[in-house]
């Protein structure tokens, strides 16, 4: 054979060999088991160890689950039932039944309103679907997504439907004003710009003026007892003088800037719309929604933030903070990419600071410090302060994710946008962000999962999320004193279900992105 080949090189196969089935040792369950479980002494030992481990766990847990009691009023009654049934161990799942509402909604949310967060949750699934599965669901559904916050707010916190509706209307009107100003011809816009510019300039000057006064006041109150206080007091004094010197020029300059931009129109439109929405929210919201409500009352029982609790609280915190932190994260990421040292510096310091401290300390800030930084008469409730701090926390992490997305964009995209004459805002909004965000979605989802898990930390500042609920009212109650396995496993389970699904989604998405990018 070998000889023939070497000499007569020419070889032509005339017939097609039919594919044959693989040899028996190559297929079937036996092969699988041999290859995957017992392919060597080490492997065999590992398999046996693993099987033993599984067996132990199973034998430990199964009777406990199987003998679980679902119907009892207290832990003693429950234990009695277990012993009565002759079992050695048995879980007291009755606590879940007994305290189900508390675990889910906290112990103060009105029971006849439980359907509201539920509906809000279900609608959320629908509202978020077009964002998560952009290919499957029509883009039109994004409208629902945009409306969702208003609906959810109303459902969960209750009160008059007219409040969120009026806010929504204000936003829509603002959008219309925006469009209107944009569509003005240059002449009209110049006039408007002059007016708005003057107004904004004056307003700014006033703000700065009060700021300067405030700084002076701070400087005065620090005192100069030690070298440190002397320095800081002087510093504040200097800042105050600086601001006194600046408030008129700044006002004029910003006014002029708005006027100067009339031709392009970007600033005029933005400032006008901002002013409009401020006026509407600050002065019209209350009266308008009040009047509307008195004409056609559509009201749900109002529930104060304090009364939110249980798993619902984790959900609220998670969803609200993540959604709020995305825009903030975008701004921070863009700021960190900026080539202006001051802006970049501020963003870097903020991000690194937040990432350097544990969430708990930020919650302490929300709990004990934030109130000192707010105007004396303002009354932020704890949940709002916590939302502020958690949002700051997650926005720093999201900013880092988005920065990765921005960095992953080829420089050519920026250059192409530049060479087409798009300005910074346009390029960012139309070219850069859509792509960067798309790349960042898996990362954002991961941050979201982490954050959602971290919402349990609010129990440390004695809020009654699901963990707080367990550690507080449930384990402390006479009925369920020192029950732990059942409730903690339940809490673990509800988190696992959500977090696992989200992380599976993010992995799916990553695969999608990998394949769809060419």
């Amino acid at each position, binding site marked *: 054979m070998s000889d023939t080949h070497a000499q007569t090189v020419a070889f032509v196969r005339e017939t097609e060999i039919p594919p044959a089935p693989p040899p028996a040792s190559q297929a079937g369950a036996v092969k699988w088991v041999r290859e995957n479980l017992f392919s060597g002494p080490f492997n065999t030992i590992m398999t046996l160890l693993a099987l033993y481990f599984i067996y132990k766990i199973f034998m430990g847990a199964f009777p406990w689950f199987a003998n679980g009691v679902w119907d009892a009023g207290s832990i003693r009654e429950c234990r009695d039932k277990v012993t009565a049934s002759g079992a050695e161990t048995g879980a007291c799942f009755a606590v879940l039944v007994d305290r189900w509402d508390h675990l889910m909604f906290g112990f103060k949310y009105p029971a006849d309103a439980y359907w509201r967060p539920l509906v809000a949750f279900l609608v959320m699934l629908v509202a978020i679907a077009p964002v998560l599965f952009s290919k499957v669901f029509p883009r039109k559904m994004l409208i629902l997504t945009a409306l969702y916050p208003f609906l959810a707010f109303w459902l969960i916190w209750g009160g008059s439907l007219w409040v969120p509706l009026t806010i929504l209307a204000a936003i829509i009107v603002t959008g219309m004003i925006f469009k209107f100003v944009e569509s003005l011809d240059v002449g009209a816009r110049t006039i408007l710009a002059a007016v708005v510019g003057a107004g904004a300039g004056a307003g700014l000057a006033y703000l700065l003026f009060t700021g300067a006064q405030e700084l002076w006041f701070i400087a005065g109150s620090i005192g100069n007892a030690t070298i440190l206080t002397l320095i800081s007091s002087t510093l504040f004094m200097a800042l105050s003088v600086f601001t006194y010197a600046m408030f008129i020029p700044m006002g004029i300059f910003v006014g002029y800037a708005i006027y100067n931009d009339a031709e392009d129109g970007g600033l005029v439109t933005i400032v006008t719309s901002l002013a409009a929405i401020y006026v509407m929210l600050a002065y019209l919201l209350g009266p308008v929604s009040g009047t509307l409500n008195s004409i056609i009352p559509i009201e749900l029982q109002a529930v104060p933030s304090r009364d939110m609790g249980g798993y619902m609280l984790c959900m609220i915190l998670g969803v609200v903070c993540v959604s709020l932190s995305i825009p903030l994260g975008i701004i921070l990421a863009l700021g960190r990419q900026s080539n202006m040292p001051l802006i970049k510096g501020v963003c870097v310091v903020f991000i690194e600071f937040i990432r350097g401290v544990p969430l708990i300390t930020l919650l302490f800030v929300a709990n004990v410090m934030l109130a000192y930084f707010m105007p004396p008469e303002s009354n932020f409730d704890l949940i709002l302060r916590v939302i502020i701090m958690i949002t700051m926390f997650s926005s720093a992490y999201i900013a880092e994710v988005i920065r990765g997305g921005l960095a992953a964009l*080829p420089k*050519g*995209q920026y*250059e*192409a946008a*530049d*060479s*087409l*004459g*798009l*300005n910074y805002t*346009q390029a960012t909004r*139309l*070219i850069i962000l*859509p*792509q960067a965000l*798309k790349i960042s979605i898996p990362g954002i989802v991961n941050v979201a999962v982490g954050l959602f898990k971290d919402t349990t930390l609010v129990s440390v500042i004695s809020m009654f999320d699901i963990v707080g609920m367990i550690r507080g009212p449930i384990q402390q109650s006479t009925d369920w004193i020192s029950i732990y396995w059942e409730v903690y496993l339940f809490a673990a389970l509800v988190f696992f279900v959500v977090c696992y699904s989200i992380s599976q989604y993010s992995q799916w998405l990553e695969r999608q992105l990998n394949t*769809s*990018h*060419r």
Partner: protein
Amino acid sequence: MNQQAQMTVSDEVAIEITNMNKWYGTFHVLRDIDLTVQRGERIVICGPSGSGKSTLIRCINALEEHQAGKIVVDGTVLSSDLKNIDKIRSEVGMCFQHFNLFPHLTILENCTLAPIWVRKTPKKEAEEVAMHFLAKVKIPEQADKYPGQLSGGQQQRVAIARSLCMKPRIMLFDEPTSALDPEMIKEVLDTMIELAEEGMTMLCVTHEMGFARQVANRVIFMDAGQIVEQNEPEEFFNNPKSDRTKLFLSQILGH
């Protein structure tokens, strides 16, 4: 070569570069560049890698800043004033080696984006214009696809159409064919030749000597940041004056 005569070169000046210098840090990339381009001229720039060709044309639409000298494009002095930069960019189209299409937008959206947002053209009108130019580069049927679904040659043609939609008076090309497979190069060159025939002012960095011979009014040879030689294509290829050019041509034509 015969076509060349038919193409018109007016004596209006489209681009005037005087005594332009540019540094990257301490590295002197462009040295004393003087170049005047008449309206309708078609200029091919060639030269070894790193000689500053890309940098030169990127300076013309202010993607890079220059540190000394003057660049006047279509009567507008390129200064650090944003308004001027905007004005120049809307008159100068640019076509990159790697196309740089926007992958998240369809072909049509790629083409209408700038007209709508920069020129404030109504969408409908912008789309008509875009379809016209897409037809011109012979891919109107791809309008609703995404860039990722097109071949390299098609993508480059879309990139050209995208620039054209802004109705630029000058087109800059930076090695538009070097990222392409041989078959696709032809598609793109054909499109460029067509453009040239319509009298578009063009500056094109390329090593496609066939293209240079066929359409260029002038070939510029750069080395080490300087314009070493410039001449009509025929002369340039057959009678290079400088030794550097000779060496370069021997390499480039040899392989």
